[in-house]
């Protein structure tokens, strides 16, 4: 930094602090969309006009806008709108639970690895490299083969596949703060490693991890939908967007709407969380501030 590049000192702001997503219309749209999806997942069963598994045998494969069935019915006469509303829950749970799982396991691994460095770090990172080189779909196929396909196996496969990514990011941030004075001071002060990592370092390395989780949620939502579409996740008759699309495939000629609505739902959920994730990333990364 030379004197010629010096700029006038930043004006003290009198405005109240701006909301993190202010001035980012796309991110706000994403936040609203994501909030809507979460609201549907929480309150969907209250809004649903019928049970997701109740068959109306007088109205099999009714098109959308038919009486009593706003979005039509499927091959068993089940109300598509009700199944969509109930299905938000499994899709969202799978997306969020797997990301949480990946974070809960990956964050401590990265923190410990970066804090202790040396041979422990080298060993952990080699294991992480190996894990990183294992596609989640194979893991899901393996789990389905062992204990049968289920929502929780899908969550496990998606979650485990996120561990190495989170661990790497956490380790990188830990290494960056490891030699800062406040950490050195805590070490000299004789504080226990666990306290230093948990109380002093964790709050300072958490923001890139949060960014990664917001990026990972839409990926996991789509991943969970893929697994149930392939029959490796949620099983019928449970309402789930991916599983609904799998069943719709056999009826595309008679009932094209069955193949449209669940896909729109997945698309809206993924797009909303993608936009929100981009916004959170930009808001937490000072270099990207407008």
């Amino acid at each position, binding site marked *: 930094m030379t004197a010629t590049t010096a700029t006038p000192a930043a004006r003290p702001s009198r405005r109240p602090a701006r909301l993190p997503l202010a001035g980012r219309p796309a991110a706000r749209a994403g936040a609203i969309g994501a909030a809507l999806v979460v609201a549907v997942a929480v309150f969907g069963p209250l809004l649903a006009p019928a049970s997701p598994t109740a068959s109306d045998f007088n109205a099999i494969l009714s098109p959308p806008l038919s009486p009593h069935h706003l979005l039509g019915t499927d091959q068993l006469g089940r109300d598509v709108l009700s199944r969509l509303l109930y299905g938000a829950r499994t899709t969202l749970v799978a997306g969020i639970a797997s990301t949480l799982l990946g974070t809960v396991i990956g964050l401590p691994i990265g923190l410990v690895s970066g804090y202790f460095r040396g041979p422990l770090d080298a060993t952990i990172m080699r294991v992480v490299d190996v894990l990183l080189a294992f596609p*989640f779909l194979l893991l899901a196929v*393996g789990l389905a083969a062992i204990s049968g396909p289920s929502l929780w196996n899908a969550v496990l496969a998606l979650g485990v596949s996120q561990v190495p990514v989170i661990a790497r990011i956490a380790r990188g941030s830990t290494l960056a703060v490891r030699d800062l004075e406040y950490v050195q001071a805590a070490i000299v002060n004789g504080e226990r490693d666990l306290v230093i990592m948990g109380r002093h370092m964790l709050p300072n390395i958490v923001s890139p991890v949060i960014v990664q989780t917001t990026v990972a949620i839409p990926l996991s939502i789509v991943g969970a939908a893929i697994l149930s579409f392939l029959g490796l996740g949620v099983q019928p008759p449970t309402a789930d967007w991916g599983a609904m699309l799998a069943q719709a495939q056999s009826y595309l*000629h008679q009932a094209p709407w069955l*193949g449209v609505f669940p896909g729109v739902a997945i698309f809206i959920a993924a797009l909303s969380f993608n936009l929100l994730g981009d916004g959170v990333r930009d808001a937490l990364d000072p270099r990207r501030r407008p």
Partner: protein
Amino acid sequence: MLWTVARRLVIALVTLVLASLVVFAAVHALPGGPATALSTENDNPAVIAATAHRYGFDQPLPVQYVRWLGQVAHGQLGTSPITDLPVSTQLVQRIPITAELTVLSLLLAVVVGVPAGVAAATRPGRPRDYLSGAAALGGLSIPHFWFGIILILVFAVHLHVLPSGGFVPLSQGVGPNLLHMLLPVIVLGTGLAAVIMRQTRADMLDVLGTDYVRTARAKGLPEWRIIWVHALRNSLITVVTVIGLQLGALIAGIVTVEEVFGIPGIGQLTLDSVSQRDYPTLQGVVLLTAATYIIANLLVDLAYTVINPRMRTWQGAT
């Protein structure tokens, strides 16, 4: 450089061994063991025991693992109890189908993604930038399998211009083969094109602001030459990286696209073997996929080191 290559090779080898262990363990973790899985429900315990003995399942696990590895190394992956065909024969039949789908999709992704990224980067903040940005976001958020279903609805069910699925081998004519491949390739290619486009745009923006581009402009080189020859060369590193990072997603995409369009490739074989409890085939398929994935990753890593000289001086820093 040599050290980097050696390190990558060791990691790849360890991963491969680990993958084989996982595959082996998965089948042996089945309730009742693999012999029960191979038997029908009506078989009595003596028959199951005989099956176990015939396949060597009554040996200690480490012995079985080493013996299995030996067989795999000789290309013997066992026989499918469902189709009575050797697993290796099934794999050889289906590999070309999946390979064609993958190569064509990668090609489409690069041919669409790179120019779109360049177009967006050369006019940042203009309509074409926003247009390709929006298209990329859409491409990233649309699940493969749903995009496939929508294309089938439009082009096969309504317009009747393209087949809704299936596969025609190349031996029965290039035209019909490509016609059947068109929709699957579009589905698989667009997601990847979106990622490539985004990354190319970001990289191009960086490169276009560098000194050497300014020097090229000062020399009076035509703009197309600066963009397509000087700047793009550096952005190509990105394309290789992105493909490397997307390999896992690509495998998931291949399986779903094969399922949606009824293409009898490796992906279909994987799902069929799970649903039919055909464990020898499943073992073979998973091992093949893991090996391909690991080798592809290794090649991407090595290509990256070769293309980007800066990577070579970093080797001690990682």
